[in-house]
């Protein structure tokens, strides 16, 4: 059974059904949309369940070639990294759709766009064909643009335009690089081009070609992440987008950038990656400190969270280019965690925005007295985002920092200051919005209702769940990460630090004292 086709296809089918629903039955739009995305989630969970841990091999492969001469087609599959991106996406979409109850204007179009968006993002994460990847990567752009443009708040024109221009500029580089790479691959295997990533992996590239292609891919993905200094579209887009748009944007769209870096830049161009690693890592660290510092003084809650995303995504890039098994695992984990925590924060901001139609911190004050349950959940999400141990954010950032220190000690130390800054921007915002005397303007607001609690519940459970017991995730991510590192090691002179790696782990026996020799000091 083509499981992944089902995964990507179900939201599209849903979109189609929503499209042909009779005008007289508007009440069906919401359940059909939610049903379609939930069905896709069910497939994703099936994939998660059936996924074989402990191997870097691609699984659930589907290979249907459309064109021999161009060697392109429906080629999909998942490994330990894309697996969790798929699951994260499949979880956040039904939640976002459920959180879109306050959308009353052109609901049908809205839902169609959401479902097409879901299919696009899922496609990005499962594609093993470069052209297919690019197609999905671009498909995502259109519904996101429309969501911001049509359902955004005051400054939506500017924000949506900026979003498109930035991303499309990156796409140009991406397309050029992909075609260039496919043609070169084709030349080596005797076709006009080849977009099959397995063929691409097998070819030899000259140093210059690697570097140019690396940069082409890197620019496209860096804009998406967004990496400093390409981040300025993000604050506007996040802020102006409707709630579901912000959740999806921060939760999964940004991950398309880091996922792309991992899947293409690190895997396909190891030599160039090693050469460029320090520069990208530095940009990551700048993003961590800069994003967090700028977040502190934002007067708008959504802008604050947007800049905090720049900071958190910086951690992911740092870990990625530190090239240690710990830092890479941490990066992938942080991609999942950031999707959950920032998704939760944006959902919560959306819930209060529905009530008050303001995002200005100064318009609040003493909200915890009026909405205690809401306040508790917000504080939970804030601490999760600030990397409190026991919650998911800590596992990612801690592993990234410990791992990155092995390669870039100074950068890791500077990045560590992000934990202080995160505490400042989140707790200061919390203080101004929730504590003190209640602002008369927000008196009498209703606390969260059952639907809103049900929307938050899965995120809370997951944030705690993978924070306390991250092992099932790590076990599936590790082999894929090790494979990337193996490729880098075999293609370059770079040696992955042995510290803490399976061959070097000091054996610890429990229950008795036994003296261990050495270590690697």
């Amino acid at each position, binding site marked *: 059974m083509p499981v992944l086709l089902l995964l990507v296809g179900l939201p599209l089918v849903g979109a189609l059904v929503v499209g042909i629903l009779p005008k007289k039955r508007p009440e069906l739009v919401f359940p059909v949309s939610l049903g379609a995305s939930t069905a896709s989630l069910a497939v994703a969970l099936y994939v998660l369940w059936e996924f074989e841990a402990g191997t870097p091999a691609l699984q659930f492969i589907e290979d249907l070639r459309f064109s021999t001469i161009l060697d392109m087609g429906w080629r999909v599959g998942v490994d330990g990294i894309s697996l969790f991106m798929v699951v994260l996406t499949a979880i956040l979409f039904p939640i976002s759709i459920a959180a879109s109850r306050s959308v009353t204007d052109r609901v049908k179009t809205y839902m169609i766009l959401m479902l097409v968006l879901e299919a696009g993002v899922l496609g990005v994460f499962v594609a093993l064909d470069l052209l297919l990847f690019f197609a999905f990567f671009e498909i995502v752009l259109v519904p996101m643009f429309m969501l911001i443009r049509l359902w955004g708040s005051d400054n939506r024109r500017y924000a*949506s*335009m900026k979003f*498109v*221009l*930035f991303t*499309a500029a990156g*796409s*140009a580089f991406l*397309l*050029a690089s992909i*075609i*260039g790479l496919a*043609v*070169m691959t084709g*030349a*080596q295997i005797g076709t006009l081009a080849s977009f099959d990533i397995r063929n691409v992996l097998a070819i030899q590239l000259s140093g210059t*070609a690697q570097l*140019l292609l690396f940069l082409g891919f890197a620019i496209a993905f860096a804009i998406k992440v967004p990496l400093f*200094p*390409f*981040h300025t579209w993000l604050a506007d887009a996040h802020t102006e987008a409707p709630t579901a748009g912000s959740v999806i944007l921060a939760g999964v769209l940004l991950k398309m950038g880091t996922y792309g870096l991992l899947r293409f830049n690190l895997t396909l161009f190891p030599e160039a990656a090693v050469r460029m690693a320090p520069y990208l890592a530095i940009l990551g660290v700048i993003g961590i400190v800069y994003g967090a510092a700028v977040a502190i*003084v*934002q007067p708008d809650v959504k802008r604050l969270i947007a800049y905090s995303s720049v900071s958190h995504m910086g951690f992911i890039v740092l870990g990625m280019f530190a090239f240690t098994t*710990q830092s890479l695992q941490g990066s992938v984990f942080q991609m999942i965690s950031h999707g959950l925590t920032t998704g939760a924060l944006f959902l919560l901001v959306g819930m209060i925005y529905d009530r008050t139609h303001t995002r200005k911190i100064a318009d609040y004050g003493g909200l915890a007295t009026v909405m205690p349950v809401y306040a*508790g959940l917000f504080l939970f999400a804030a601490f999760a985002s600030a990397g*409190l*141990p*026991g919650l998911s954010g800590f*596992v990612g950032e*801690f592993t990234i920092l*410990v791992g990155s*220190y*092995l390669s870039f000690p100074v950068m*890791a130390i500077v990045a560590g*200051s992000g*934990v*202080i800054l995160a*505490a400042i921007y989140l*707790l200061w915002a919390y*203080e101004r919005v*929730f*504590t*003190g005397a*209640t602002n008369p303007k927000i008196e009498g607001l209703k606390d969260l209702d059952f639907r809103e609690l049900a929307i938050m519940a899965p995120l809370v459970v997951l944030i705690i769940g993978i924070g306390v*017991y*991250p*092992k099932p995730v790590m076990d599936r991510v*590790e082999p894929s990460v090790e494979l990337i590192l193996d490729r880098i090691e075999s293609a370059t002179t770079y040696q992955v630090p042995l*510290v*803490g790696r399976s061959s070097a*782990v*000091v054996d*610890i026996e*429990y*229950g008795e*004292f036994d003296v*261990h020799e*050495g*270590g690697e*000091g």
Partner: protein
Amino acid sequence: MTDFLWLLVALPLAGAALNLILGKRIGEPRSGWFGFGLIAISFVIGFGASLGFFAGTSNPQTIYLFSWIPAVGADAAILWDPLSALLTMIVTGVGALIHLYSIGYMHGDDRYPRFFAFLNLFIASMMILVLASNFAVMFVGWELVGLSSYLLISFWFTKPEAAAAGKKAFVVNRIGDWGFLVALMLIFMTFGTFDFRTIFENAPAMFGVGAGTITAITLLLFVGAAGKSAQIPLYVWLPDAMEGPTPVSALIHAATMVTAGVFMMARSAVLFELAPVSAGVVAVVGTLTALLAAVIAVAQTDIKRVLAYSTISQLGYMVLGIGVGAYAAGVFHLTTHAMFKALLFLGAGSVIHALANQQDMRKMGALRKAMPITFITMAAAWLAISGMFPFSGFWSKDEVLAAAFARGGAWLILYVIGLGVALITAFYMTRLFAMTFLGSSRWDEGVTPHESPRTMTVPLVVLGLGTVFLGLFNTPARHAFEHFLEPAFSGVEQVEGLSIGLISTLAVVAVIVAIVGIIIGLRRYNTEVLPDETGAFWRRALAAFGVDDLYGRFLVAPGKAVADWWASVVDPKVVDGAVHGIAKGAIGGGERARAVQSGQVRWYAAVVAIGAVALVVFLLVLGGGF
């Protein structure tokens, strides 16, 4: 019994979750008794599991629970040795009394169940910290303790001061945590693991005394400890933490939480032994903190602030103990301090309660008759902290000072300062005691003080007994306490003992110092009219020498200015401007196009077209490649 140790974390955690979710249904006072009961059971479990150490029949052991972060080899596991056993008993024992006391103290509060949820969470966090078998899990407890203290300090969040104090505590602690975090990175790189036993067993073989790596690790650990245990320069959060519900959260910040840093350094004793430079820094900072805080305490008028600064000062003694290598003595002072400081805070709370939330000592006085139980128990605590023979504080403080003396040389300076601090301590504690219980009554009109209810006085009496007798477990003649802890400090050389004669001499000197301080204090404050305290010294000391202002002016304000500048100038003008400029140059007339509202799709097409051009260039450049 050790099979059940995981319950020490699980029970309080379950209590926290239940009280948080179902608290309203459980209601007052049942949620309080429920929270108390869980901690009492935890104490019984901890005590039972410690029996083997008392008898000397058990060896330290590690109990594996589950693999936490496999990537860095961090397991959720318990290290059960006399040190963790001792801290377990302190945390759950004192913790249970706090819960009991709060049942009465928090009566009538709107969010009564929530308070017990936070208290339970605090105990769970402390237990994770104390029981951890590796640095990574210890850091988990460390941070969660920070969270619980944030929640407790800002419990009455409608008061802006309380909300700000909670945030300040968390942020200042996180500055220390940064140091701890960097220490963890360095530890992992050096040892490839976070496991205590692996590290401590390998370190002496891998590194000589004075090795740079270990010096760096220990100094960074101390930065973390300085945050939690309120040492210079990170102590500023603790006085503000008194905004928490009186005095229960204050007590947490006095008796248990703040000892985390001391505990962490004692746990890492093997590393500090290899780093004499770090140990010296620790000792000096500890001594200076003890001195500074004692001087500030002299001029405070708020009873809780006196106790807050006295806590900082006493923590300085413990840190000095670690610095001079008298780990057991430092931990012993931690133990006695937990007793008498808990007692002082609960006593102060009882007084505040009786005077309708009056915290200003100038409006107290002559409470001796109205509150006999509070008076007598507070008297014991006053004498203990003043270092009076034979109360507990005398024995433990003396151990620390004797250890400094025994090191000789330049360490004698620390001994002398430490002795001076003892004099100041005796003086300001006498001031507190006399202004509260003796002299004339200066109560606000209409206030009729009364003794507190039984749930509040029973903990006072229990702690009073501990305050009086605990010291006798570790006299110079019979170091029962040190023997108990010995297995936890195996591989660490304790400071050589002094001869009994010399010890007795030091003890006599210490008692004389205490008596002098007490006499000066009584003559000055056991009077009908309080002395005038408005001179320059009193004003400056009352304002804590303006350290908070200095931090505000030279750290916070410039930091915020930079962030403001980045946010309002650099980001929109420089970064965004550059990108706009590039886009404008590349596309040509991009600004004009943006004004054309319907042009987006065309623009999108244009950008993709540029991609195609780029592609051609690309292929030409790479032409030689294939």
